[in-house]
């Protein structure tokens, strides 16, 4: 089974090689393109990326922190149901949120026109197609990342904090400000950096809002300026920013262990009654209607409208191929990724002992930090070189190989992280026990490894499948001709301003996503039961 160790190295190489190619792109700088970028795009790119980042971090914090607080420290009927409802935005791809936002609140959006008609307000005032609107969309879509980490932080540390605060006669508000929030900083940082990475990686939503961010810059350089080299160079710059984020993410992740030195006690949940309970329900209801109810109803209603129209049957037929491509590409990629993740997690537990091996293993997990647009560029370049050297024409670049390589590099860590934790449940004593009893390899797998990891593997399967269904930039930039997915169709329809038609593939995608989120939640919920 030493092949498991080799697979770890192979995936790490897949992450490293494209990065090296990207950095080497600076050897051939195309001055004209760069002058164009510096004069017209780079300053805006930097400014709008920075404003977007700060806004999204603030927005997600304002949503996630109160939600996590109420869910952890209060008890009320329906609390568990809200737990899953708050995770549902994960089922909506960012670009779908963006498309819905623009259809409803854009300059000619349904709600914009309705408000304008009844209040006399200028549609320009209601229009959300601006930086502030984009920040709102990102905040609604990405807050669950912070919500999940803060729920974990409050759940593990909240009980102890309030017990100590009570014993020292410290007011609750002071305890939250002076103890709870500082102690949970590593979780906050981990969540927020994850959101920062997602924000920097987004391509679909930013391009729908015509925002000039790094990812749209890469796309425009490649397909607008027709310069792969310039696209590579812009990608390298973004990659450096992302790796700075990764550095801080890792730093805060390691601090989590430090904070965990305190033995955790589950917090006592205060029962909410009367007016306070009504107010909480009201707040929750408004929020959920805004982030889940309205978007889902909108997609549903538009789908019914489009399919009920004169050419509805033809349209649904035209979506069969993208749906099929979405499902089979995601399924094949999920199986590949899960197979690799499973083997790597096994290797990490039983084979990778020295720091050199572990370095390779950790490197293989960095792929998630690389935005899809960068990966698409970075994988295309070496494959194109191989094509030219070996075949003299585009063979690999026109195949599914770049697509699957991109998926693997970017999403292997999503499958790997939970499986790694699952294998860690086997201590060194367990390993020794297996040796002492002389269990055969078959028995080891049948009785121990497989049953121990099967639940985690299933939830990892749904997580990876969900991410792949939603994935846009890698698919858009590397798919072979005629392999459009639902995500690509949504992008195409929204690019043409055909919001109604975009709603149908979005509805299918979100419905599949909701099923996957619920499956993943069942495990998340188990953790706290």
């Amino acid at each position, binding site marked *: 089974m030493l092949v498991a160790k080799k697979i770890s190295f192979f995936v790490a190489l897949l992450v490293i090689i494209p990065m090296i190619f990207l950095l080497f792109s600076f050897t051939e700088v195309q001055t004209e393109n760069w002058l164009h970028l510096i004069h017209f795009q780079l300053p805006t790119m930097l400014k709008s990326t920075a404003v977007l980042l700060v806004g999204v971090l603030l927005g997600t914090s304002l949503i996630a922190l109160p939600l996590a607080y109420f869910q952890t420290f209060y008890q009320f009927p329906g609390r568990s149901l809200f737990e899953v409802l708050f995770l549902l935005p994960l089922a909506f791809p960012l670009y779908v949120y963006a498309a819905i936002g623009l259809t409803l609140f854009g300059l000619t959006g349904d709600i914009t026109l309705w408000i304008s008609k009844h209040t006399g307000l200028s549609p320009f005032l209601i229009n959300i197609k601006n930086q502030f609107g984009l920040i709102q969309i990102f905040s609604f879509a990405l807050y669950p990342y912070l919500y999940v980490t803060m729920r974990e932080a409050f759940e593990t540390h909240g009980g102890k904090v309030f017990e100590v605060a009570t014993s020292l006669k410290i007011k609750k508000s002071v305890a939250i400000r002076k103890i709870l929030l500082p102690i949970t900083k590593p979780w906050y940082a981990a969540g927020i950096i994850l959101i920062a990475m997602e924000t920097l990686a987004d391509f679909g939503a930013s391009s729908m809002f015509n925002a000039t961010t790094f990812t749209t810059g890469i796309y425009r350089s490649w397909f607008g300026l027709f310069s792969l080299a310039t696209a590579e160079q812009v990608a390298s710059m973004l990659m450096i920013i992302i790796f700075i984020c990764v550095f801080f993410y890792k730093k805060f992740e390691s601090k989590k262990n430090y904070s965990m030195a305190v033995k955790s006690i589950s917090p006592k949940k205060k029962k909410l009654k009367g007016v306070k309970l009504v107010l909480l329900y009201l707040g929750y209801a408004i929020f959920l209607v805004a982030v889940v109810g309205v978007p889902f109803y909108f997609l549903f209603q538009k789908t019914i409208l489009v399919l009920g129209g004169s050419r509805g049957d033809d349209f649904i037929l035209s979506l069969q191929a993208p749906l099929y491509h979405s499902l089979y590409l995601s399924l094949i990629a999920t199986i590949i990724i899960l197979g690799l993740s499973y083997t790597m997690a096994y290797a990490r537990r039983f084979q990778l002992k020295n720091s050199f091996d572990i370095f390779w293993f950790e490197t293989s997990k960095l792929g998630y930090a690389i935005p899809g647009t960068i990966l698409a560029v970075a994988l295309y370049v070496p494959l194109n070189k191989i094509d030219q050297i070996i075949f003299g024409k585009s063979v690999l670049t026109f195949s599914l190989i770049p697509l699957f390589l991109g998926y693997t590099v970017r999403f292997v860590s999503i499958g790997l992280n939970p499986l790694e934790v699952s294998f860690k*449940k*086997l*201590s060194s*004593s*367990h390993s*020794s*026990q297996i*040796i*002492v*009893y*002389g*269990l055969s390899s078959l*028995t080891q797998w049948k*009785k*121990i490894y497989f*049953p*121990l990891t099967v639940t985690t593997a299933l939830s990892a399967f749904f997580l990876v499948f969900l991410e792949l269904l939603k994935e846009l930039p890698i698919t858009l930039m590397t798919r072979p001709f005629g392999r459009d997915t639902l995500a690509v169709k949504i992008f195409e329809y929204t690019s043409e301003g055909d919001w109604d038609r975009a709603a149908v593939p979005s509805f299918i995608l979100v419905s599949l996503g909701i099923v996957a989120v619920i499956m993943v939640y069942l495990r998340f919920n188990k953790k706290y039961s």
Partner: protein
Amino acid sequence: MQQLIMVENLHVHLKNQGNDVKILNGINFKLEEGELASLLGPSGCGKSTLLRVLIGLEKISTGTIVFEQKNIEMVKPHKRNIGLVFQDYALFPHLTAHENICIGLSENQFNNELFTQLVNMVKIDEILRRYPHELSGGQQQRVALVRTLIRSPRLVLLDEPFSGLDSHLKEDMAKELRMLFKKLKTTAIMVTHDQKEAFSFSDSIGIMRQGQIVQWSKAFDLYHEPQNRFVATFIGETTFIKAKKISEYCFYSALGEFKIDKKTDDGPFELMVRPDDIHIDGVSHPLANDEISIEGEIIESDFRGAMTLYLIQLENSECIKSLVPSHQKFERGQKVSFHVDMDRFIVFSENDKFNDDNLI
């Protein structure tokens, strides 16, 4: 009784961050069938490594292990007929208690009669369908024990089996385990750093230090006849005062003149004084004709329920301890007279102390 295991001049070196570290340094002991032994010593002295070597999880550098009259150096762990109960019990979290017990046993290997007997003996029949996280520490330990015993090993190794239990449970469990092993006529070696556990469980105890067994005796002998200063300090309460050699078998100390029956090297010397050999007058022990009363001052007391341990300062400022029934109360600063059981005195060379200090 037949000898079951004999360990001779066992050395084990392990790699730690690229360096060769001596973990076991010349271990020797023998165990007869049905004997219960403990390895007692401070953390890091090599106790657990010795168990791992006996079962075959670590390799021997030099030396021999003869088990059932065979050298087992090259025998694989699962073929050694030795069982090991791990400190953390190593129950598989996804298997019920019953599944944990039966793991790896084929239908032919599974002895239903023994299973029923063991399960009833350790009273786990009602928890067999539960998962490890639904069991208390004591229940987990019993399941791990049955999992080992169901394989009918000739020798059972227990690595700090009570470390996860409440202190009041430990001694009871040790006694219970002793009874169970005696009933099953099983030979066992238990590793612990708790002397009370070792006393309750074992027929004989090996005291380990720095990868060596410094004394292998019965519990009584370890306390009353320690072979070196380390054992004397490690087992029970003790104090040392200076002693001067007057003649070959005769010494003088602040407690008076006394004789010993062993020949000693050249001094300087220290006298080991156990607190139960010091009797404060008027408490429980009437003075015999040849006993002399000595004076001292109570400077500290340590209440221990049935008994109180007093620290007494002698006229020359040296201190000794005395264990007194707790209903006899003395105050700090109170002058007391006491007498001693001089025939139980043991003398150590101060060089022994020097060697001990170097080892720490």
